């Protein structure tokens, strides 16, 4: 983005009463055009939101960081450069680069990184903090020639690496990847000496743009895709199984097929982190099952569900997989080596992300691995990620049992032995609650999303509560599957957010949750901040059953009204202690 384009972006008018996104920027440089680029990139990622950036005092990064976070939950950006760790590492001060001074510079840098780590440790408990570690070149202060890494330079980098490692352990801090930044902003083209000397803004425009771009992305933290559907022949392995046989397929260096092994390795990693992996392949099912018995496969068969192996169109296989997963096509990536199959799937499921697996270009295959990591990358792995696949398999076999026995829904639910565990708290620290709020579409009260900062801010209201529910039955645990957030005012409980994972449908959990909320709060009525979204049909249907009409907007339902219309729940409801 050019600077003039960023300015044009900021000229776009916003609707009246647009929500604001407040950013506290802590840096020691004059932020000038970085602020313009950051606001422009954030405006693109958060459409319709006004972005307000507050800045601190020039030349006092550590002080600026220490002054942050005292007032309220906020979103914070920290831009660190070498001169913030010791002014002698900048070019606006003449403190000296004499060899005798280098140990003192190093000592100052170590002290400053420790001071910063302490300050960030404190503010990251209540705030979301994006951190950029030094991006500019170290000045020619060391006495060694520039092509040699000096002890001085190594010491500086060691101090920053220690800071980076400490920050990585803080859940509220996200550090910008220096490797990704190097790709889009070459280190040799970052420092603008003239600008730094004349205005205190040290970045070239291209570097300011690249850094702002990554900062905005790290703050946006896009939702990871939920599932990956892969082809087999010439994708998961090299070779056409039906032609070369089980021993003819390969995924190793010896057979010039390592890119397929790396692809399997990435899928195994994604699966272990909670991504759903399925197969859509035109193949002989028995032969495929036999192929998966080969011990050297990097992606184990048990990590794959379901496997749609048949001779029909891939789009039909994809439809069945989406149904088994109960997720929308927009949450899924489809990978195949055949452009024709990709086009056929894309035509039937326009929202799916389709990616070509290159049969003969190792570089392109590697780029795909990096792209998949971006699409599925997440902040942390939770216990729910581990049980997602097993609960889907359990739900699938439960449905098959129900179908085979011809049970009525009442009988089936009675026999399920369900247990709903609810946890009331005002502590939004469990990341699963925010994850559910931001990724659930179907059973979602109003589609409203939160950043980490705004989520924490929501709970600064003393009347606010959070309800997080888990469910398990004889078919296995579903994990944490529902979130309600609202406020209690007298005899009314106002619900601002209510989401439930699609894995938990058809168990009447929504009836149980509302019942428990009424009982626990003693409220006589519940007020729902409901609004129709393109995809929240399931919650609309639930409310229509209670109200005998589909609501169009915010509404209130009395306890008596609810009791008259709710369905019987057969599961046990219990409360868990605050975690």
């Amino acid at each position, binding site marked *: 983005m050019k600077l*003039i384009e960023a300015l044009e972006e900021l000229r776009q008018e916003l609707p009246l009463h647009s929500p604001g996104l407040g950013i506290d920027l802590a840096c020691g440089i004059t932020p000038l055009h970085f602020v313009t680029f950051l606001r422009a990139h954030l405006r693109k990622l958060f459409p319709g939101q006004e972005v307000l950036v507050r800045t601190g005092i020039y030349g006092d990064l550590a002080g600026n960081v220490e002054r942050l976070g005292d007032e309220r939950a906020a979103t914070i950006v920290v831009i660190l450069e070498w001169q913030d760790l010791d002014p002698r590492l900048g070019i606006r001060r003449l403190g000296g680069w004499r060899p005798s001074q280098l140990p003192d510079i190093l000592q100052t840098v170590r002290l400053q990184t420790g001071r910063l780590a302490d300050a960030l440790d404190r503010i990251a408990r209540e705030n979301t903090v994006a951190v950029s570690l030094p991006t500019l070149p170290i000045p020619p202060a060391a006495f060694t020639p520039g092509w040699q890494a000096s002890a001085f330079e190594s010491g500086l980098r060691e101090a920053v690496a220690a800071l980076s490692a400490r920050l990585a352990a803080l859940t509220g801090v996200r550090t910008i990847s220096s490797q990704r930044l190097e790709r889009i902003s070459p280190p040799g083209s970052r420092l603008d000496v003239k600008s730094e000397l004349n205005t205190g803004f040290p970045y070239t425009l291209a570097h300011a743009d690249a850094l702002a771009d990554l900062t905005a992305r790290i703050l946006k933290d896009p939702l990871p895709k939920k599932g990956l559907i892969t082809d087999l022949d010439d994708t998961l392995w090299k070779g056409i199984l039906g032609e070369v046989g089980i021993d003819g397929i390969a995924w190793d260096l010896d057979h010039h097929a390592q890119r397929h092994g790396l692809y399997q390795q990435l899928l195994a990693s994604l699966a272990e982190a909670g991504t759903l992996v399925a197969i859509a392949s035109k193949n002989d099912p028995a032969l495929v099952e036999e192929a998966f018995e080969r011990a050297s496969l990097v992606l184990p068969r048990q990590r794959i569900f379901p496997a749609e192996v048949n001779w029909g169109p891939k789009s039909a296989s994809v439809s069945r997989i989406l149904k088994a997963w109960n997720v929308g096509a927009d949450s899924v990536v489809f990978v195949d080596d055949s452009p024709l199959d990709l086009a056929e799937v894309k035509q039937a499921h326009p929202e799916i992300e389709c990616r070509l697996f290159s049969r003969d270009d190792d570089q392109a295959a590697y780029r795909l691995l990096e792209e998949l990591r971006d699409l599925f990358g997440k902040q942390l792995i939770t216990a729910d990620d581990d049980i997602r696949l097993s609960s889907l398999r359990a739900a699938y076999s439960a449905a098959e049992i129900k179908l085979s026995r011809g049970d009525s829904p009442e009988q089936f639910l009675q026999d399920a032995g369900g247990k709903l565990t609810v946890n009331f708290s005002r502590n939004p620290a469990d990341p699963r609650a925010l994850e559910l709020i931001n990724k659930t579409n179907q059973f979602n009260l109003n589609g409203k999303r939160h950043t980490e900062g705004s989520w924490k801010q929501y709970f600064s209201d003393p009347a606010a509560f959070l309800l997080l529910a888990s469910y398990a039955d004889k078919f296995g645990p579903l994990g944490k599957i529902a979130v309600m957030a609202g406020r209690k005012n007298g005899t009314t409980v106002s619900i601002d957010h209510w989401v439930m994972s699609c894995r938990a449908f058809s168990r009447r959990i929504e009836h149980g949750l509302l019942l428990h909320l009424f009982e626990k709060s003693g409220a006589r009525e519940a007020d729902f901040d409901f609004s129709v979204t393109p995809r929240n049909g399931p919650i609309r249907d639930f409310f229509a059953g209670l109200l005998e009409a589909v609501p169009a907007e915010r509404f209130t339902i009395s306890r008596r009204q609810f009791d008259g219309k709710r369905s019987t729940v057969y599961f046990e409801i219990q409360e868990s202690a605050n975690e």
Partner: protein
Amino acid sequence: MSDTRARLTKCFSSVFPGLSPGDVSSASVETVEVWDSVSTITLLTVIEEEFGIQFDMDALERLTSYNAIFEYLTQDASVSRGGSL
């Protein structure tokens, strides 16, 4: 309107979105209330980026109006680049 004038007008409009198109060509530090030191830096940087030039630091003091900058672009910068903008 010449190409240089049109591009310069676009730069001014981006940095000073409150300026009406008719007022751009007469804009100066005296007539534009929000023209401060920060907007000077932003304006000159946008112009440098748009025209692919580097302003001579010694010339900055006189670049306080649309006309002065236009003159710089068409004379000084043009001469230093050995051609016309």
